[in-house]
């Protein structure tokens, strides 16, 4: 091994460098890795506990009966008492259902089991409630806003296009499935290997093209400066420009500060570490409107006026604690052995951090930054106080008010007519999709990085 440190990314983690042969290592079989002898923690859970199934057919029957009796009871009660509110019905049905589960379990087994079943039911209900609320919200926004994002086509066109996309997606799915099975069998000639792939890619591209062709391009390429409140048309171009510029400024400011702060907190552990961690905690709970208010007080209100850059600074104040905390968590997952081996090879600390720690943590740090961006991109209150919003396209982030997506939506929501509110919903769909894409990207990168770091 040379003393020169090289960016080898994962070599220390998943490939044990030829260790000296251990004398009493078992020699059975071929090339036993010495490390494998050590009782190292298994892949997923150290010890997945065995749970005997405690939910049998009779329990299932009890649950169905309780549900039926709940519905029947609530219906009868509402009929007798002449209540017509669906909520009254729902509450009585749930109460009777839960009580029924408790009572039957109590009668058949014991108090302890009955209580357990009651709590299990309540906890499943709360889980279902949370999932339902998230799903409801996303679907609601999509349904309200999708109309403004696509072209106004006759019904037949729609059916044809949706059918085409569905057909192509089906082809892609079948091809993927077939190819996966062929490769598992290991019997594939050149033609059988290439042809399905070509067909599959062509169909995927085709589906994408059809999907893109129905998008209302005007919505993305025009602003609303000359569009009257009741007019057709207009779009979010100015808001997209503003969001792009403000987020870029916020990222350029906050990511270096946040990652350096995380390095200070976890790698250097200097004298300021305790107060800084305290302050970062305090910052992460800072109401977003206060972040806007402070930039407004210090910068905007002292004669410099609204601008996109000041919005970028306000968003940076929101991003710094988010990115710092996530980045510190990532640094914490890196094995100390890595740092020490770099130091033992004679590298100064900065080389160990720059060439060993940061490359190992790269994916995690990118995830942290993207999550910060996802959080900042939807913030309305701070940009309201700093960029203020505008109907015209302002390319210069350093002077004059500028729009962005949240401000665009916010401005239109306060106007009392349907067309404007429909535009706001369409912009909300764009914003939601942006957040979703950022979020999923961050998770995919983060998971790949974690797999790489742990060598799995």
């Amino acid at each position, binding site marked *: 091994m040379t003393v020169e440190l090289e960016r080898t990314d994962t070599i220390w983690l998943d490939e044990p460098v030829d260790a000296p042969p251990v004398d009493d290592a078992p020699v059975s079989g071929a090339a036993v890795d010495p490390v494998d002898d050590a*009782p190292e923690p298994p892949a997923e859970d150290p010890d*997945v*506990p065995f749970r005997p199934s405690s939910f049998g057919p009779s329990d299932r029957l009890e649950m169905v009966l309780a549900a039926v009796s709940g519905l029947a009871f609530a219906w009868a009660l509402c009929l007798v008492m002449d209540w017509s*509110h669906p*909520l*009254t019905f729902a509450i009585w049905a749930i109460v009777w259902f839960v009580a029924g589960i408790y009572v039957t379990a109590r009668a058949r087994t014991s108090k*302890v*089991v009955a*209580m*357990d079943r*009651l*709590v*299990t039911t309540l906890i499943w209900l709360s*889980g279902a409630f*949370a*999932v339902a609320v*998230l799903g409801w*919200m996303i679907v*609601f*926004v999509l349904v309200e806003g999708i109309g403004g994002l696509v072209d106004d086509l006759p019904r037949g066109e729609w059916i044809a296009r949706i059918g085409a996309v569905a057909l192509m997606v089906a082809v892609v799915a079948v091809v993927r499935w077939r190819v996966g099975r062929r490769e598992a069998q290991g019997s594939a000639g050149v033609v059988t290997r290439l042809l399905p792939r070509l067909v599959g890619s062509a169909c995927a591209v085709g589906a994408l093209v059809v999907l893109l062709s129905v998008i209302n391009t005007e919505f993305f390429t025009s602003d609303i400066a000359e569009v009257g409140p009741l007019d057709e048309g207009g779009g979010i171009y100015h808001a997209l420009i503003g969001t792009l510029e403000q987020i870029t400024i916020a990222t350029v400011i906050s990511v*270096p500060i*946040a990652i*350096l*702060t995380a390095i*200070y907190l976890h*790698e250097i552990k200097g004298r*300021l570490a305790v107060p*800084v961690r305290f*302050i970062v*905690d*305090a*910052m992460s*709970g*800072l*109401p*977003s*409107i*206060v972040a806007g*208010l402070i930039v407004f*007080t*210090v910068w905007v*209100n002292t004669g410099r006026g609204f601008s996109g850059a000041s919005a970028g600074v306000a968003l940076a*104040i929101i991003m710094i604690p988010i990115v710092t905390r996530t980045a510190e968590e990532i640094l914490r997952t890196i094995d100390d052995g890595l740092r*020490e081996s770099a130091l033992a090879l004679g590298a*100064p*600390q*900065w080389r160990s*951090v720059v060439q060993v720690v940061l490359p190992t943590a790269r994916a995690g740090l990118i995830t942290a930054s993207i999550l910060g961006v996802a959080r900042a991109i*939807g913030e*309305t*209150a701070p940009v*309201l*106080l700093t960029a203020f919003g505008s109907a015209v396209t302002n390319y210069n982030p350093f002077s004059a008010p500028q729009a962005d997506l*949240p401000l665009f*939506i*916010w401005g239109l*929501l306060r106007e009392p007519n349907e067309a404007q509110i429909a535009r706001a919903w369409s912009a909300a769909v764009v*914003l*939601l999709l942006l957040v979703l894409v950022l*979020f999923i990207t961050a998770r995919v990168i983060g998971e790949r990085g974690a797999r790489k770091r742990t060598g799995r």
Partner: protein
Amino acid sequence: MPDAPAPDGASFEDVPRPIVQSRTFGDRVFRGVSAGAAATCLLIMITTGVFLTWKAFPAISATGPVEFLTGDTWQPDDEAFGVGGLLVNTIMIALTALLIGVPIALGLALFINEYSPARMRPYLTGGVDLLAAIPSLIFGMWGLYALSEPLSGVAEWLASHLNAIPLFRLTEPDVSLTRSTFIAGFVVAIMITPVITSVSRDVMAQVPRVQCEGALGLGGSRWGMIRDVVLPFGKSGIVGSILLGFGRALGETIAVVLVIDLVFQPNLNILEQGSGSISALIATKFGEAQGLEINGLIAAGLALFIMTLIVNLIARAIVNRSKLTG
């Protein structure tokens, strides 16, 4: 690598020897730059406190500090800035949010940790994180257009069936039940759920599994295990997570502004129209404020800043301590 016992039976610990080295020039630059970045965070918070106090001073001294904190009039022309009623309403919204959100959030945390099938777990935690990433503006729009209608029905039901509880009483029989504290509280409850869930889930996941398995092995039910092992262990962390959610609820802006009508008088009938919060005041009045009113808004922001700072620091201290002892 796990600790291996040394041949003579004494176990050695795997602790690195402290390294004494003279720092190179590069190291000193590196440490300086990182310390500078860390100091920037300090600087931001100190600037916030100092500037807000400085700019708030004219408005507070014009009104008088006691009147500022207890009054419920906002008359910029008479130099009267009272945020007392708004403080009460802010706290009422946050408490309503806790009342609705805490059972859901803790139920969800237990569901993810103890009840859900292992295959679903990553998706559920992902869903909770996603819920935290959804912009508050979208929550507000959803609350305004999707929730107001059904929730005013709920409010009607509560007012007619549970009016034994003073909070649910109405001052007049046919007062409007939309744009109320209750509806704002419900929206905010959904928004703070991911905060409470993820923090309390982290704490409860640190319960020694051996103790849980021991409780089950002794014949305890799963609820018995949760009640006697998980909850006592995670108690302070759960309290901390609830406080964190409270801090988040106090500062929530856009979602609240969209679903309420701003009133300055304290409104304890949470089902009735008219509510308010400090951040809603800033966001609504900011556009047309001039002169001393801007200072008044900054003063209100300062009050919010101090309130959330205190709540958050207490919450963080509790959570961190519970993680250390855990």
